């Protein structure tokens, strides 16, 4: 079997590049690999396990790609890493590995920052979500709606898997979500992570914890954006009478280091919190090995599985995680959940519970480690991928025929223009324009029975959606008013 692998590669600073470096050595045993990249440089170690080829979208070597049994595309939200490979996948369908379940960021970024294609973006949003999405897309483009709002309502994942022959997700619940967007096979495989040999475990680790005593080291690391909830963590620590019994160490890039340092100082946490910045891997590993507790919150989330969480499991570190997306599916005995709407309350509760019984949390870390060893083995992941390749090969012909459907439906629309009785129908799981009977006149509902449920559900969803949008707009307006009033007051 020969596979074409499209992914960001180390040293690109994305977890997906690191994932590729972790998976390829195991996958090499099952397939000949050609890794395709548009990066100018890559870690030469990759060439020990695969042939690495550079491509240019304008001059794609289709013949070389066609010699492979399947092309595998890794999709994430950064247009710089995934924009070009998504375009390749449009021309040459293959398996899509979804590293995020919400890809609005990728497409909004591509259309807005890279292509400056307002009409293309708005048309795309309308194609997938209808007229209201068109209005929202216009509002977003004009700066009246935020990307966070769009992420929440229009994931655009369907655009990434539209031509796919197979989809692999790293989150169990993601299968059901993605199956609505594509008729092709969708499988779940836990994110692979080759665990290093075990450190002292179980009672030994707990005893070690007891012996060391406070202050306990809490660690937080990675690319830390606003959704990592650092503000909430700092506010919680500041309000915690026992805060001196903890030391929070922050590693990695901060979205706004100046703001974070200012907040630490303003909250009186200079002695409790240390910002280390980006450090070499061995230094981070040593910090993880020395930590007692980790914080790995994410809200909102794109639904992605977290490599950093697996790294924390590797160190058997008990971790506070937000109870959303992939994290919500983790076993309750392996992580400490923080509800997004009770964030400070839950963080505080866990910190106090930790102080009261650190061994309980050490056991939680051990459960995480066992979970990692049982479910995240690269061998199991590679087997799932190989099985998916076999299944996806049977879908190649459907991808070709689907294009024919699109051309035929386009032709029919041209004939019939706007007065036609045509409306979309589902073919291969997507809207295809086709003949249907003339529209039926609406009837008054006299009695509610089962057949009306879908209609009411649709009305309910539309209403909730509209209410949500209005609430968001109100928040934005209120914030603007506060700003204006605050400025006036200060003057």
């Amino acid at each position, binding site marked *: 079997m020969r596979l074409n692998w499209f992914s960001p590669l180390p040293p690109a600073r994305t977890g997906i590049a690191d994932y590729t470096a972790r998976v390829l050595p195991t996958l090499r045993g099952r397939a000949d690999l050609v890794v395709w990249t548009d990066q100018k440089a890559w870690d030469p170690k990759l060439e020990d396990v695969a042939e690495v080829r550079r491509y240019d979208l304008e001059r*794609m070597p*289709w*013949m070389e*790609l*066609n*010699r492979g049994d399947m092309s595998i595309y890794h999709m994430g939200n950064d247009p710089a890493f995934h924009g070009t490979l998504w375009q390749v996948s449009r*021309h*040459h*369908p293959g398996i899509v590995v979804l590293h995020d379940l919400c890809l609005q960021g990728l497409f909004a970024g591509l259309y807005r920052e890279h292509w400056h294609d307002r009409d293309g973006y708005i048309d795309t949003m309308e194609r997938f979500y209808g007229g209201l999405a068109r209005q929202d897309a216009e509002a977003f483009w004009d700066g009246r709606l935020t990307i966070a709002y769009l992420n929440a309502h229009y994931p655009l994942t369907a655009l990434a898997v539209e031509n796919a022959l197979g989809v692999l997700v790293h989150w169990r619940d993601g299968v059901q979500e993605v199956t609505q967007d594509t008729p092709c096979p969708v499988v779940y495989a836990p994110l692979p992570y080759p665990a290093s040999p075990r450190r002292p475990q179980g009672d030994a680790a707990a005893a070690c914890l007891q012996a060391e005593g406070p202050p306990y080291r809490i660690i937080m690391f990675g690319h830390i954006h606003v959704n990592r909830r650092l503000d909430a963590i700092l506010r919680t620590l500041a309000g915690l009478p026992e805060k001196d019994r903890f030391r929070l160490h922050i590693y990695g890039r901060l979205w706004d280091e100046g703001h974070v340092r200012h907040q630490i100082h303003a909250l009186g946490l200079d002695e409790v919190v240390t910002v280390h910045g980006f450090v070499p891997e061995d230094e981070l590993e040593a910090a993880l090995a020395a930590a007692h507790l980790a914080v790995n919150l994410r809200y909102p989330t794109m639904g992605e599985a977290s490599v950093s969480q697996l790294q924390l499991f590797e160190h058997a570190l008990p971790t506070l995680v937000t109870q959303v997306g992939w994290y919500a599916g983790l076993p309750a005995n392996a992580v400490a959940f923080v509800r997004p709407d009770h964030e400070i309350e839950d963080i505080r509760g866990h910190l106090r519970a930790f102080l009261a019984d650190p061994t309980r949390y050490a056991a939680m870390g051990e459960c995480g480690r066992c979970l990692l060893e049982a479910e995240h083995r690269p061998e199991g992941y590679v087997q799932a991928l190989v099985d998916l390749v076999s299944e996806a*090969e049977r879908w*190649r*012909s*459907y*991808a*070709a*025929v689907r*294009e*024919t459907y699109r*051309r*035929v439906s386009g032709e029919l629309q041209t004939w019939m223009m706007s007065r036609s009785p045509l409306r979309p129908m589902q073919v291969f799981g997507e809207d295809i324009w086709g003949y249907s009977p003339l529209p039926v006149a609406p009837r008054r509902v006299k009695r509610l029975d089962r057949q009306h449920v879908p209609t009411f559900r649709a009305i309910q969803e539309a209403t909730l959606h509209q209410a949500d949008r209005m609430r968001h707009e109100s928040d934005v307006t209120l914030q603007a008013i506060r700003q204006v009033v605050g400025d006036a007051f200060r003057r």
Partner: protein
Amino acid sequence: MRVLIATVQVPFVRGGAEILAEGLRDAIQGVGHEAEIVAIPYKGYPPERILDQLLACRLLDLTESAGNPVDLLLGLKFPAYLIPHPNKVLWIVHQHRAAYELWDHPLGDFMHYPNGPHVRDAIRQAEERLIAEARAVFTISANVAHRLKQYCGIEAEPLYHPPRYAEQFYCATADDYFFFPSRLSPLKRQTLVLEALALTRHPVHVRFAGVPEHPTYAEAFRASVRRLGLDDRVSWLGYLTEEEKRYHYAHALGVIFPPHDEDYGYVTLEAMLASKPVITCTDSGGPLEFVRAGETGLTTEPTPQAIAAALDALWESRNWARRMGESGRAYYLSLRISWESAVQRLLG
């Protein structure tokens, strides 16, 4: 009986398939039936267009014409042979070769398109299902039947037919040249023969005839002749009338015909009718069903060296060449290839 012959026609391109369709029509009319050719315009690129045309064929209704039933549909070429009909017989000239044996071959075009594998699979899947609609499946050669079996698992009976004006071929005293009549195309491998000519020990001369499939092929051919210093040993006669073609067959020392995996190959049969030995290659497909190595011609590896050796051998042994040519004609006659027998099988 009213019979429709369903085929495709690439506008401005005429070859063996068109001759076959016309010969079949005439033969059916000759035995007292009504017969007409329905030729669907065809463009085989980019790959997705092929599926459009397949769909277009499937949407045609050839069960009746002007209120009168069409009793039999005879399908010859892809995708016209997939037009639905309750009484359909296929006589397959060839399938869409880029989706099958030419998929991973330098002469196949699908490999150069991003959706090549996807369209290939769609064609294969469609054919596996739709060819089975026919009441009977014949092919024009054992080679085409073999491919159908290999790729689609479908059994078919090879059914030979004679070249046009078969009875008018004749033999005359051999002059100092080999004849290579065929449209100029990479699949026919004229360039391979030029490379062989550059290696012969004797001043072997080859007369090429036929129109180029694409203007660039003619330029490439001329460039090869110049590059190999063969200006005085190569003639390119271009388009020939049937009478001119028979003349060049009749006066040739032998016929060289080394195509890549030919479906059938009228050239082989015409050479045999003109009592000329045929040099062909081990991967030439259809011609191998007729050339009996050392008896009616020579079969060589598809290399310039091997072909050069074969050309030299016949050049220096004219009597041997003549005897093999005579054996070839006798062998052809022994096969009893005729339109009558072909039509009888097809009409059932």
